[in-house]
């Protein structure tokens, strides 16, 4: 399916943003602001992510979908904390590569999967996930 103009423009913007490697300064900034170091630049704090684990009843054996995850925040963190499986999705391939690298370095790549996809056309069947989260997604 051909991406819409909005999707092409968003992909170009995000490719520029997510293609830029993180630095000590950007990681320090993220830690100071939201308490994470996943390359996030949104408004979901670590405390709010912890609340999501509880409200979504995430646990080992459950499967979470994070729509518009960027480099993997908060989906990868939710999987790390709860033991659940996670699929993170977003348009920029660079962001998904970063997320894959992070899941590998954290030791849970066996239950973390990355899918380049538009939130408007997710390639998943009905009832695939126990929970779905999306935060700070531009629409």
């Amino acid at each position, binding site marked *: 399916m051909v991406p819409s103009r909005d999707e092409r423009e968003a992909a170009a913007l995000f490719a520029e943003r997510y293609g830029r490697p993180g630095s000590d*300064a950007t990681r*320090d*900034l993220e830690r*100071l*602001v939201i308490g994470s170091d996943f390359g996030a630049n949104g408004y979901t704090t670590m405390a709010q992510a912890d609340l999501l684990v509880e409200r979504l009843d995430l646990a080992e054996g459950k499967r979470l979908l994070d729509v518009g995850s960027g480099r993997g925040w908060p989906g990868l963190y939710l999987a790390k904390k709860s033991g659940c499986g996670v699929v993170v999705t977003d348009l920029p391939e660079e962001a998904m590569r970063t997320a894959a690298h992070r899941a590998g370095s954290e030791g849970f790549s066996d239950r973390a999967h990355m899918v380049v996809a538009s939130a408007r056309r997710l390639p998943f069947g009905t*009832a695939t996930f126990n929970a779905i989260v999306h935060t700070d*997604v*531009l*629409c």
Partner: protein
Amino acid sequence: MASNRDQADLLAAAGFAEVEEADFTGEFLETALRWLRFSRELEPALRASLGDDVADQQLADRTEMVTAIEEGLLKRSLLVAAARPRK
């Protein structure tokens, strides 16, 4: 998710039930202020790693975000909903 439609209505239209909404606008503003404050504190290091153009744009974006929240143009909510039981 940015939208001018009621979020709870959107969830209901998408087939979700038991929609609960909690306002997080206060925390949203606090976080936006922290992005701005610490971006300024780390500005030299951020400029060195991001370049002036990107650093300037990010500061402008952060400032604009704070203004938009303070003026009531943006709010943030946590919405939790359950899928309707399948027949």
